[in-house]
């Protein structure tokens, strides 16, 4: 007679089911938040990696700059290249305008963070160049 009647267990099960239901709805909210956070993190990480690749890849910048400066069109040009801290300085006291056009078009079409630029006409055919690129 002292054993628990099965009917007494029913209310406990119902209460347990209600608690589980509440817990499930809480976890569902958490899951929804986790999904949106993950989606947001995915978008941001994609954006950051893409932008880092363009503006924050020191090795890639140095490599591609070196390739441009060694280009056959600029072989005759006396170009000075100096890397200080997180910047690279490119300068030429005098270069032909055609060479300048080639260099500038390459640099403007590439993904470099140009922080300073100075072009001064020397005469009808030549100009001087000073340029600062962030690494």
């Amino acid at each position: 007679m002292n054993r628990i009647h099965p009917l007494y267990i029913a209310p406990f099960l119902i209460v347990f089911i209600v608690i589980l239901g509440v817990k499930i709805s809480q976890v569902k909210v958490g899951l929804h938040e986790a999904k949106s956070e993950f989606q947001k993190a995915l978008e941001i990480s994609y954006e950051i990696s893409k932008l880092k690749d363009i503006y924050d890849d020191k090795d890639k910048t140095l490599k591609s700059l070196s390739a441009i400066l060694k280009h056959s069109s600029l072989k005759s040009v006396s170009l000075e290249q100096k890397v200080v801290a997180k910047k690279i300085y490119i300068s030429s006291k005098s270069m032909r305008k055609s060479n300048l056009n080639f260099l500038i078009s390459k640099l403007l079409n590439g993904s470099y963070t140009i922080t300073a630029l100075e072009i001064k006409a020397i005469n009808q055919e030549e100009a001087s160049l000073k340029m600062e690129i962030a690494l």
Partner: protein
Amino acid sequence: MFTKYSKKIETIFLESSSESKSIEQNVNIILSPSFYWVKKISLPLKRARDVKKLLPSIFEEILPSGNYSYAVYKKEDYFLAFAYEDRVILEFIAAKGISAAHISNICFAQTFFDETDLPLRINKERTLVMQDGIVLMVPSSWHIIAKEFYIDDRTFPKQTITLEKFNHIVDKKNIYQIGSLLIFITFLFGMELFMLQQNRDEILAAKDGLFAKYDLKPTMMQNESVVKRYNALHEQQMKFRSTIATIINLKLGQNEKIESINYEQRSIHVLFDGVKESSFKHIAETLKAKNIEYKVDFKDSMVILEVQL
């Protein structure tokens, strides 16, 4: 009438004429034949549980309407089948001042007494007798010679019954069906909860993996700030390129030329030579067409153009 039986647990013979008595300790109860129906049945079945399934139909003809529970015990070559109303017995017990919590065991007089105990005079009016192997309650006047009520301290029989409190409300079968359904629902809910938590944990782990893979800052706010900074830089660089491209490609007159281009601190300064205020119009139109905002300063034949990025 209540009769003490065991020293360890008090045993009560429950009879319709029993007096009320407040009991504060555990008791064993022997049910008088007035609380149950009993039948001796012979069936070609071996197991008592198989017989139990048939009892509702076996008792159907003799029982008044009510909600009955059934019990069956196997004897040598026959079965002893019982039918009783839980609610009636429980209500009677409660009316006699016994709490259901204090009931240890309940058995039928049939299973407690054997032929050697009977006839047994319960009180002046009633005597327990055995007829054809069935324990019956008869008027005492039928059996003048009967043993006085005395029960030795024998062990309470193992053939006991459990009274179901809600038997008259819900059928036991239904209780188990409902119970099974609730347990199934609990299981499903538990599984769903487990899977949701697993899913959430996997997503959080994948998010942590992203942070590690792309070397992100610890908080989303910091990362958003990084993106904002990069986007501002990107916008500025794109504007710088388009402005420089526009300036370099300006169509200048025969004696007009660009003397210098200077870019520093997000500001572009262009020095034109040979450009007069009146002839600056075509340069202004080109800049306007490209949505470039500028400031201009005229000095003799020199024009200083300033564009803020």
